[in-house]
């Protein structure tokens, strides 16, 4: 009860977040589409059975004569028609259950059979309460790390390698595939593919502590050309603006606590406790899909993250207004 007073208003957003689809029955890829197909089959079969059971109960209530407490109880009435009906109902139910089991296992096989030729490999590491994504490449200089925003090309299979840095999380993009847990000490994989261009919302589905609620990410499926362009941009080290304000912001970043936890490629800041900020300005949102990525929100987040995501691991940063403004300008200049 004391905790009632322990947190300030956590209300996070004032600028609207970008809209991203999140609906398991609006599939944008083969995995989710197969599952949706299975869904409609099961809903259909179950719906019919449910309706029949209800009708039987209602009809029984309607047809049975009324009684009171004093009505003598009937003790013998073995009606062979009733017995036959019960037996048939059980047989039909069993057959339907077997049908559903077979359909489910068949769907499972189809999901496992997604062709993985030319698959994109992305390593996902979940942290309390954000997502780290490392894009693998045969060429070491082409590897890069980003956070809370995953881009994939339309029409190509993607293999996500899933790990956790702390507690159990679960990765879920409803429009594309089912979820998979990220368990410390274990490695799991999730394969998915997007056939339609678009922004899809993902969120942690396994309770993981204080900010389980605000541990989202954006998955953008792009046409291959745009995806390639994004890839090229992400592979670059951070932009170095010559403008005075941005340079000062860079000093604030490197001289303060920020660099202890955050990395910005090309600056020497290599902290790995928090999200990689090399291309922060290219992302749609900050704080794991919690706030729209605007300078105002960035300033709010930096100065008091606990007011927005109570319990988050990022400490408040008490900066003079000028420094804060410069830092925000610098971070906003990292496309």
């Amino acid at each position, binding site marked *: 009860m004391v905790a009632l007073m322990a947190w300030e208003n956590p209300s996070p957003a004032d600028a609207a977040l970008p809209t991203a689809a999140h609906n398991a029955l609006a599939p944008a890829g083969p995995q989710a589409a197969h599952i949706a197909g299975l869904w409609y089959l099961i809903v259909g079969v179950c719906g019919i059975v449910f309706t029949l059971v209800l009708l039987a109960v209602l009809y029984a209530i309607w047809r049975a004569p009324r009684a009171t407490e004093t009505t003598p*109880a009937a003790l013998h009435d073995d009606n062979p028609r009733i017995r036959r009906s019960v037996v048939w109902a059980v047989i039909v139910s069993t057959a339907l259950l077997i049908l559903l089991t077979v359909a489910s296992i068949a769907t499972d096989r189809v999901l496992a059979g997604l062709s993985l030729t030319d698959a994109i490999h992305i390593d996902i590491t979940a942290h309390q309460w954000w997502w780290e994504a490392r894009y693998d490449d045969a060429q070491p200089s082409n590897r890069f790390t980003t956070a809370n925003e995953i881009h994939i090309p339309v029409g190509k299979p993607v293999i996500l390698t899933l790990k956790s840095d702390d507690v159990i999380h679960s990765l879920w993009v409803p429009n594309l595939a089912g979820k998979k847990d990220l368990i410390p000490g274990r490695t799991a994989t999730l394969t998915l593919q997007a056939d339609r261009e678009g922004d899809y919302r993902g969120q942690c589905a396994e309770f993981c502590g204080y900010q389980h609620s605000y541990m989202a990410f954006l998955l953008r499926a792009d046409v291959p050309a745009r995806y390639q362009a994004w890839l090229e941009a992400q592979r670059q080290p951070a932009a170095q603006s010559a403008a005075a304000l941005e340079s000062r912001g860079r000093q604030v970043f490197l001289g303060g606590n920020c660099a202890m936890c955050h990395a910005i490629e090309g600056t020497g800041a290599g902290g790995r406790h928090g999200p990689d900020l090399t291309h922060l300005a290219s992302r749609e949102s900050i704080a794991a899909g919690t706030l729209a990525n605007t300078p105002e929100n960035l300033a709010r987040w930096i100065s008091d993250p606990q007011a927005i995501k109570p*319990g988050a691991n990022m400490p408040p940063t008490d900066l003079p207004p000028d420094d804060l403004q410069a830092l925000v300008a610098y971070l906003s200049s990292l496309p």
Partner: protein
Amino acid sequence: MQKHNAHQPLDQAAQLEQTWRDPPGLPGWFAAINHKSIGKRFIYTTFLFFFLGVAIAGVMRLQLAVPQNSLIGPDLYNQLFTMHGSTMMFLFAVPVMQAMAVYFVPLMIGARSIAFPRLNAFAYWVYLFGGLMLYGAFLLNTGPDAGWFGYVPLAGADYSPGKRVDFWAQMITFTELSALLEAVILITTVFKLRAPGMSLNRIPLFVWSMLVTSFMVVFAMPAVMLGSTALLLDRLVGTHFYNPAEGGDALLWQHLFWFFGHPEVYLIFIPGLGFLSSIIATFARRPIYGYPAMVLSLITTGFLSFGLWVHHMFATNLPELGKSFFTAASMMIAIPSAVQIYCWIATLWTGRLNLKTPLLFALAFFFILVLGGMTGLMLASVPLDLQVHDTYFVVAHLHYVLLGGAIFPLFGAVYYWFPKLTGRLLDERLGRLQFWLFFIGFNVTFFPMHQLGIQGMPRRIYAYAAETGWGPLNFIASCGTLLIVASLACFLANILRSRRSGMAAGDNPWGAGTLEWATASPPPAANFIRLPVVHGQEPLWDMQRHLSEHGQIPSPSYVEGVAANFRQVLATTPLDACPDSRPQFPEPSYWPFLCALATTGLFIGSIFTPWAVVWGSLPVACAMIAWFWPRHVDRVTHAEQEYRSDGA
């Protein structure tokens, strides 16, 4: 003729009352061991925790009613949903079924007492202290916040420092100890204390359901006790059961927890099936159709429920082949439930219906539980489960199953048996009002959650952004909660009003057929003035029929030769219920209460220092020895009363 007890001379009734009643006054309250006193307290306590759990749920619905609500923060919210789940699962749903059984099973099988009455009192006190400890910790801002499922490593020492999770894990030790003891007590009661003639094929279906439940408790609860003990050891003395860095494994906890957790769902559901069978038989004015099929279904459900636990872990990286097996098992458990549902429909179809409140609650089962069962099939399917697992779809599913399968039948059972407990009927109009408010409120609250899950809303979130679009459905769900609260207010009002001024019930207000209705309402301390002899599945109806067909009641109709001046009971054989021996039961005692206090000291102490296990076990041992030790005067009188028929 149902009142054949009344023919018995009054002095025997008075003598029995003298022998079997609990000691008077407040001090006597702590020494009480009569299963009806303990059962009543047990039922009231479980309902107290139920109302607390509902209140917590109300606060959560308030928080979630609108997006980005700032009513409560994550720290409190996480405590609230953990308390809600833990309360409902550990402090309400399982204990309330055992509590009902503690009161009614001895009456339904025609026994003087429950087996091991002192142990029964001890089990109640341990349960009570465990619940009070958890709520005490919660009020001191040390409420558990890692979920009722306490997944490691979040519940481990690294990510849940402080004592919150320790209190939670120790609460499990309390409640599971209590539940395990009750299970042993009920198994012994059902196998050894049935009225002569109540062979296995005449046991009331509710008693069967509690027997199956008790066996499930025996095999399921040790898993969570072992798991939570290992969790406490990891947290307190640095063992590494769940620590992957030192060879432990986070999934070991999930296996142990769900090996308990899935049967747990069924051991809440199966007593509910027993309530339904009692209610439907009475209000359809005929025995349940297909008794052997019903019993076999209960037993099959009990067995199969141990083969489903992995369907809570489909999203982990377990081998796919194994998951297919669990899909098949999870689908197949629907068959025994279907058998029972069809048998009930056949009962209603061929019966004559007395549409009173208990039957309304029973009928709601066919809508709510069946719908929950259908969504359960979706969760059994690996691909579908991966979409809806850990979303509000599951929240909807589990409430449909647990409320439809257990709580609606439980309310029906309360309306049905309240007259037996108090001698007064609950008000029928308030009852109907409560039913409709509850039925509508329940569906308004939980039905939209299916859609929320499909739309990607995960469980256990304290807030959500407006852009997710989850606001309107959440608002509707929260409005439904108001109807549920109104319904429970009707219920409380009905209880409080009727227990004083309700219509007098008499022995058998519903014209039912089982033995608990063969005695006064409320029953005397010894349950039956004359112990009954049973000649059929529904003894009172059989007696009526026999009387109308043969002009007399079947003979013999009651037992003679069991002492009234000391606590002698009649034990019968396990299968055929032939009279077998006349053991003597213990007198009321303070020691179960004191022993529970000592146990509480040990359990709470060990949260703070492992040495409490050492020094804490001394008072426990002393209390147990004192409890066990016969008084000299008892030893002498026992020796006089003893009689061993084989001449030894």
